[in-house]
């Protein structure tokens, strides 16, 4: 995207002026915040800092008149061009601030002055006034406490207060008197009750006298009020001790001092800007939150949390214990908000802010945890996006979400382009520019922080965009790039994937706004690259345990070098290092081969020269960085022949040594893992739920990047395990080492008989079992069969321990089950899938160990043993294994039932039971349009399309004898990416075959395009056509076995009639 450069240029020039003005204001604030200086000293310094804030500082002079003093520079000369503002303290003009030019300057908004300069001078006068007021009050208080100290035993102490208030603030005194009476009457003091009543009645009586409306009631009030005050304090002195009265009065005075904040927050109409101003005022009022009454404290906190972060009650309930008013101070300067803002900062910001405050404040957080940092962040409030849309008159997009998903998908690229070429509201552009000034040339990440993200249960992670920026170059370039990124992230809220996701979860009608976080990227510069030493994600609960010694609460860390993107997402060709923080020394990978295979091979970094996010080869990165990689000794290990060694001695030349990111030193020699464990434990305890955090480590400091409940992370949600299932329907159950998840539609069970396998006479037979399983893996419907076998699947050493298979021989299974049978008094260890553990994790293949000898669990051996096995029909060449290896076609054996496995790690329970399959009746009407969002539409649509192709295929023209459907479309398991597998029985000529393939190719491409519009998945054609001949059928070779097959047979579709 190229942006109109002049627009940026104008903005920047204006911004330079604003920056000067802000700078001036900062300096004024700085001076006012120095209690060690007298007012006169402050003013004297101030006349020096004012001129640089004006347009022509060189000829500018400033003067402050206060009470009877005139503070001006020695060379002050009366000038004709003056801008001045009064200093008004407690409603009275106490002085003025003046700025003037000694010589004539070009004409502008107000003489030679800008309108912004008018605002500036008024703000400065206002701040001075506030400050004077504060000083006065402070002096008064000091007088008060001196009096209190001096008169500690003197009876008339509260009278000093009374007198003081009568003179300085009668309104306040009146409110305090009221509170005192209330206080006394709640305390059961009869006199006070009467006083309260009398006062109320009197008022009522006054109002009730007819015809007396014109009587001037007010005149009477001061006298009554004085009485009331005197009376109240008189009663109080009889019932309360001196110190009690004094402490009540002090608290109330302080509360009164921040009542403006309460009022501001209570009024829903106040904009965020006003709230922020009120907080700033409160900050300068020097009131400690702890000096306020508890109810006021709570009220303030809750209102602020609600205003800035979230209306979510659960969140507020926890947050109010940790987030104080003063915590907002450093947030305020970094919020970019539109005028009249009512937006929030969004879910991600809220989660992170709260987590940080918990770490800072929880008493159990130790020093190490207290050092956890959060990267410098600027926040863009959620309503900016609407503002942006209005500004560019793009209101149409707000209703995009109700369009058909394929339409959204088709239009989306144009929308992104449109957003990127839209202009930014100038306030937003200014805000972004300010942010860039503060953040400097550090690489940045623009992260979405939407309102929906804090709704329980909806895992929006990754649905909206997060963009990395190199943030290198001139200010203009950097600002343009940042604006570009913001526009793109904004567009992503209207993208097809989030829209579809929301539709599926009934969240379409929820009002969604997106806040943004502009965050500096954690890391260090190493040559041309910028990267954190390592990053990752950590979970309170470990759902993928690789050893029986690891418990669920031991947690899980996925750690990668460089940016954490590769740890957050599962990338199928690379692996993060897995650590269970509760058992950091039990590794998934033990042998050199395992460590090498499952180590991170690529690293995400920011290339400062290219000014872009990049993925680089980990070895090349190490060779490039060498010893400059932060904490290199703790991060890599050398492969020394048959073992993995930590770096000891000089850092070797990585060009000549085999080296691997193992994090071994980090795990063993630093408190890194212990800190993550403490962090997880603390956050889980305080938030009351297992958490999922993202973090980064730059080699020195540990940064928290995100914190949310683990249940938001989608993948592994505990499912309800039905309790009263009829015993005859349960095939097996488990109560140990259960993870979360469900495997709902199992049609085939591959069962390796425990006894049969151990009785096999030689290793060749055992290897045959492995090979047969590998063949079944290709033959059975993908993710619809489970493997049940003895001991350790994938055993490579002593294969008596378990069926020798490689990952590629089981990669289509839905689930891997290992059975540990008692032998004598010895219970064999299970592998927990060790041999391909990380492959299972990344592919979400479930693992479950079974202990059938436990009387608490079920294991229906007779079903597994006596159901008819279809092995011989499927793989006649492995018929000799029929005593050991059994394949059960569940629907066939049970009259149409399927097997469901439900697993709940919270309860440590799993059950597999027979149940009717999902309903698959009914025909949706449209072919492209309406998509039912149950997940069924993919196969249904494909099925209809296959029927249509068959119906239009002229069998004589193309020489086709029969048309079959096989694979996922036939099995009703097709997903958005699936092919349509067709099996065509040919008996025509080569020419006919060519013609046919051409004809089908046309269909294939068309369907692929339609599928893309429906689902967003790009495929190279959607049809997968298999051709067979009479010879194949006779020999039952190739796909011909599918025709009239015993299990999973091909389905014949009618073709066009001649």
């Amino acid at each position, binding site marked *: 995207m190229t942006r109109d450069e002049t627009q940026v240029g104008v903005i920047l020039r204006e911004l330079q002026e604003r920056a000067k003005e802000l700078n001036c204001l900062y300096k004024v604030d700085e001076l006012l915040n120095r209690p060690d200086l007298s007012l006169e000293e402050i003013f004297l310094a101030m006349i020096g800092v004012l001129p640089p804030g004006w347009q022509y500082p060189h000829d500018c002079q400033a003067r402050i008149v206060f009470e009877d003093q005139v503070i001006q520079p020695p060379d002050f000369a009366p000038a004709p061009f003056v801008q001045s503002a009064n200093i008004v303290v407690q409603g009275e003009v106490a002085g003025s601030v003046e700025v003037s030019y000694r010589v004539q300057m070009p004409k502008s908004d107000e003489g030679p002055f800008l309108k912004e300069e008018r605002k500036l001078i008024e703000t400065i006068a206002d701040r001075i006034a506030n400050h004077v007021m504060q000083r006065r009050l402070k002096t008064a208080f000091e007088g008060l406490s001196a009096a209190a100290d001096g008169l500690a035993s003197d009876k008339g102490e509260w009278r000093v207060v009374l007198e003081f208030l009568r003179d300085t603030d009668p309104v306040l005194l009146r409110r305090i008197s009221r509170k005192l009476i209330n206080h006394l009457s709640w305390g059961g003091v009869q006199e006070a009750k009467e006083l309260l009543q009398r006062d109320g009645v009197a008022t009522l009586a006054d109002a009730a006298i007819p015809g007396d409306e014109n009587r001037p009631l007010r005149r009477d009030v001061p006298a009554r009020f004085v009485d009331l005050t005197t009376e109240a304090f008189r009663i109080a002195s009889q019932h309360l001790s001196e110190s009690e009265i004094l402490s009540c009065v002090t608290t109330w005075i302080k509360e009164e001092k921040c009542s403006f904040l309460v009022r501001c927050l209570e009024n829903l109409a106040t904009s965020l800007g006003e709230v922020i101003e009120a907080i700033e005022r409160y900050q300068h009022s020097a009131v400690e939150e702890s000096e306020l009454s508890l109810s006021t404290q709570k009220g303030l906190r809750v209102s602020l949390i609600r205003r800035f972060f979230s209306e979510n009650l659960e969140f507020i309930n926890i947050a109010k214990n940790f987030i104080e008013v003063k915590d907002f101070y450093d947030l305020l300067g970094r919020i970019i908000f539109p005028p009249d803002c009512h937006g929030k900062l969004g879910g991600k910001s809220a989660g992170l802010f709260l987590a940080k405050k918990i770490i800072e404040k929880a008493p159990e957080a130790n020093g190490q945890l207290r050092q956890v940092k959060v990267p410098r962040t600027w926040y863009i409030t959620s309503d900016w996006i609407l503002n942006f849309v209005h500004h560019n008159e793009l209101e149409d997009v707000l209703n995009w979400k109700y369009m058909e998903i394929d339409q959204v998908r088709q239009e989306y690229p144009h929308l992104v382009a449109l957003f990127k070429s839209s202009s930014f509201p100038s306030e937003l552009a200014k805000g972004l520019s300010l942010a860039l000034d503060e953040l400097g040339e550090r690489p940045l990440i623009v992260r979405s922080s939407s309102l929906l993200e804090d709704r329980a249960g909806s895992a929006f992670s990754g649905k909206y965009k997060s963009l990395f920026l190199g943030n290198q170059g001139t200010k203009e370039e950097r600002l343009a790039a940042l604006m570009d990124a913001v526009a793109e992230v904004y567009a992503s809220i209207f993208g097809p994937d989030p829209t579809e996701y929301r539709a599926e979860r009934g969240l379409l009608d929820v009002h969604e706004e997106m806040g943004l976080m502009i965050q500096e990227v954690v890391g260090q510069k190493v040559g041309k690259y910028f990267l954190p030493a390592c990053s990752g994600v950590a979970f309170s609960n470990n759902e993928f345990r690789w050893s029986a010694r690891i418990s669920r609460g031991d947690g899980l860390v996925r750690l990668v070098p460089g940016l954490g993107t590769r740890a957050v997402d599962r990338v199928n060709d690379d692996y993060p290092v897995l650590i269970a923080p509760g058992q950091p020394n039990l590794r998934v990978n033990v042998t050199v081969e395992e460590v090498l295979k499952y180590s991170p091979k690529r690293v995400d970094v920011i290339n400062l020269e290219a000014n872009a996010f990049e993925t680089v080869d980990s070895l090349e990165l190490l060779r490039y960085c060498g010893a400059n990689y932060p904490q290199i000794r703790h991060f890599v290990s050398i492969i020394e022949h048959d073992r993995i060694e930590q770096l000891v001695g000089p850092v070797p030349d990585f060009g000549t040594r085999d080296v691997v990111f193992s994090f071994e030193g980090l795990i063993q020699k630093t408190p890194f893992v212990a800190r993550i464990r403490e962090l997880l434990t603390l956050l889980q305890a305080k938030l009351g739920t297992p958490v999922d955090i993202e973090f980064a480590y730059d080699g020195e400091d540990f940064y928290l990047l995100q914190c949310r409940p683990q249940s938001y992370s989608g993948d592994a949600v505990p499912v309800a395990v039905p309790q009263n299932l009829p015993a005859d329907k349960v095939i097996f159950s488990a109560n140990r080492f259960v993870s979360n998840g469900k495997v709902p539609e199992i049609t085939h069970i591959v069962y390796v008989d425990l006894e049969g396998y151990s*009785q*096999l*006479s030689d290793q*060749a037979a055992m*290897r045959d079992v492995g090979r047969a399983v590998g063949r079944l893996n290709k033959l059975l419907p993908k993710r619809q069969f489970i493997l049940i076998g003895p001991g350790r699947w994938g055993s490579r*050493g002593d294969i008596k321990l378990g069926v020798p298979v490689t990952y590629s021989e089981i990669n289509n299974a839905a689930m891997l089950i290992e059975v540990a049978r008692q032998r004598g008094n010895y219970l*064999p260890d299970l592998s927990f899938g060790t041999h391909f553990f990380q492959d299972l994790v990344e592919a979400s293949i479930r693992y479950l160990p079974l202990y059938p000898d436990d009387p608490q669990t079920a294991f229906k051996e007779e079903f597994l043993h006596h159901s008819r096995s279809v092995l011989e029909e499927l793989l006649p060449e492995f018929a*000799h294994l029929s005593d050991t290896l059994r394949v059960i076609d569940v629907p066939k054996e049970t009259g149409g039932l399927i097997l469901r496995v439900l697993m709940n790690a919270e309860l440590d329970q799993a059950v597999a039971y027979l149940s009717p399959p999902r309903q698959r009746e009914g025909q949706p009407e449209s072919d492209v349009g309406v998509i039912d969002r149950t997940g069924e539409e993919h196969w249904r649509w494909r099925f209809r399309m296959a029927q249509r192709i068959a119906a239009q295929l002229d069998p004589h023209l193309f020489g086709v004898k029969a048309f079959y459907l096989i694979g996922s479309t036939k099995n009703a398991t097709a997903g958005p990416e699936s092919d349509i597998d067709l099996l065509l029985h040919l008996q025509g000529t080569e020419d006919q075959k060519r013609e046919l393939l051409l004809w089908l190719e046309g269909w294939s491409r068309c369907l692929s395009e339609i599928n893309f519009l429906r689902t967003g998945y790009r495929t190279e054609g959607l049809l997968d056509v298999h051709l067979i001949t009479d010879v194949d059928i006779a020999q039952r070779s190739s796909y011909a076995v599918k025709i009239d097959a015993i299990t999973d047979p091909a389905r014949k579709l009618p073709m066009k009639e001649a």
Partner: protein
Amino acid sequence: MAQSVVSEPIDMGTEVRPSVPGQAPKKPTKAFNSFQIAQTQFDKVAEYLGLDPATRDLLRYPLREFHFAIPVRMDDGSVKVFRGFRVQHNDARGPGKGGIRFHPQETIDTVRALSMWMTWKCAVVDIPLGGAKGGVICDPHNLSLREQEQICRGWVRQVARNVGPLTDVPAPDVMTNSQHMLWILDEFEQIHGGRYPGFITGKPVGMGGSLGRTEATGYGVVFTLREALKELGIRPEDTTASVQGFGNVAQYAIELYQRLGGRVIAVSCWDQADQCSYTYRKLAGIDLNQILSITDHFGGINKQKAKDLGYELLPGEAWLEQDVEILIPAAMENQITGDNVDKISPRVRIIAEGANGPTTPEADTQIKERGILLIPDFLANAGGVTCSYFEQVQSNMNYFWEKDEVLGKLDLKMTSAYFAVSELSRREKLSMRDAAYAIAIGRVAKACHDRGWV
């Protein structure tokens, strides 16, 4: 006596993965027991050699076995007791030699079988070492490194009096590596108060390890191959070869073979991404350094880059079908089977088994019938154990040779071993495999006899 006596290699299972009988099993009678299989194999050779009953009785069983408990304080403070073994099958020809295995379902019979195999393995290359094996029932996947260290130290404390550089020399094995060996060595030296680097082999270079170990197995294969070619009167520069596998053994075998003047035209390897193997072919001969530059740590060749460099990409099995004089299976067991043996080109003269057990017995028979010279695995890949012996020798005298010296001595050992086997095979019309076993067992039997044990 011209009949085949040992039609099948001995199956010891596990890490050595020798070849395995592959016929369809009848109704299983009992679970197989690798020790019984090893004894049966021995019995057949003993019969052929006409060993007396006492010798047979002695060699059918280990001389000594140690079974012991290793209590270990675990990281969580609890104590767990592990079971450890050391089996010394025979030390008539020299100190026992054999690995220490960590395995969750280790059995004493597996260890016995493996120790017997070590005895034969050392004898066939005529190095003065006997056979032993040890292990601990444990799964390192369930143990922290500290716990593993305690197991290692505990193991040696139990047998410190019964092992040593002059009695029994351990080495790394399944799920143990040089790290474990250094812990064991250190504990042994603490107990005995001295430095005994000769107690362990498989140590890192600089900690008593030998140079040349990386090359040893691959070079050893080619040393025997070179001798075989000489016997057949074929000049290496007139030959071509096809290699299965591209790991350590294959890489060094190719390097030396090409230095001898031969031309490797095809090499196959496993492709991690596609989960299948491919054969890469260049009829003009592969450029080893070029291919190495596009190969990962596991011997996986980058498919795309290979294509770009002009290599033909063929199915994994194609390595076997090439029109070459020499086949070197150097990947894994059971690769040449009854199903594919007839695909071997008529041009093939020699098969050198770089891997353990790449040929099934069924294929073995056909290869023999076709008159192809097969150099059996436990001779062809004995370069590894020979180099371990050199490591022990160097450690004992605390003087370490240059690599050339190690490899020169290796050449000598392999060559004479080959000659002995080949000579017997010719003279007795035995297959090379049978001859190798006969020589090995014969040498051990003679040592026992000479010592007056039997």
